[in-house]
């Protein structure tokens, strides 16, 4: 069974630019989650998508947005990049909502903003 895949592995952007990160969940998983892991900080919840809808978002500004496609893959967009957006962005998927399903993570996209 293929795991959660994320692309690109690394991304270097300049302050003020936009970044797009992509995620493919495990086959059969309908929920996708995005987390930010900045250096020295724990995982911070960004966004949760299920069945194409945004279900919940964490305490991040609106320039962090995303979407989920009909095939359940997902995209995270970060507009007007700031230096402090440099972090590892992790995508996770789970089997379904409403049950105690663990999250299964990809290996992340390392975003560097210069």
């Amino acid at each position: 069974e293929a795991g959660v895949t994320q692309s690109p592995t690394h991304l270097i952007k300049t302050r003020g630019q936009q970044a797009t990160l992509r995620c493919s969940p495990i086959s059969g998983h309908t929920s996708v989650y995005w987390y930010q892991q900045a250096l020295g900080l724990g995982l911070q919840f960004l966004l949760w998508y299920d069945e194409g809808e945004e279900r919940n978002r964490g305490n991040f500004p609106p320039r962090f947005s995303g979407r989920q496609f009909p095939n359940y893959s997902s995209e995270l967009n970060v507009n007007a990049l700031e230096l402090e957006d440099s972090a590892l962005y992790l995508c996770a998927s789970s089997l379904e909502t409403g049950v105690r399903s663990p999250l299964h993570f990809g290996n992340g996209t390392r975003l560097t903003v210069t």
Partner: protein
Amino acid sequence: EDQVTQSPEALRLQEGESSSLNCSYTVSGLRGLFWYRQDPGKGPEFLFTLYSAGEEKEKERLKATLTKKESFLHITAPKPEDSATYLCAVQRGNNNDMRFGAGTRLTVKP
């Protein structure tokens, strides 16, 4: 406010020296507590789910336990390959998002 606190922040053990990691939590409507292992440059790898106080789960040298206020991850006779950051997370209420602790960075020396 919901909180997840892990201790210690870092732990150095000799190979074979057993120890425990702690995860204390204050959360309303706990649905589940999860343990993950994260290696450098990788995403977290799922280890255990615990649902109710008194529950225990085991996998190789790891055993996780849960009370109403905290969870322990016991590591018995660790090996160098157990070196990693161990994260605990709580799933709460009707939200599916998980709140993570900051992790315990474990180093096992041969």
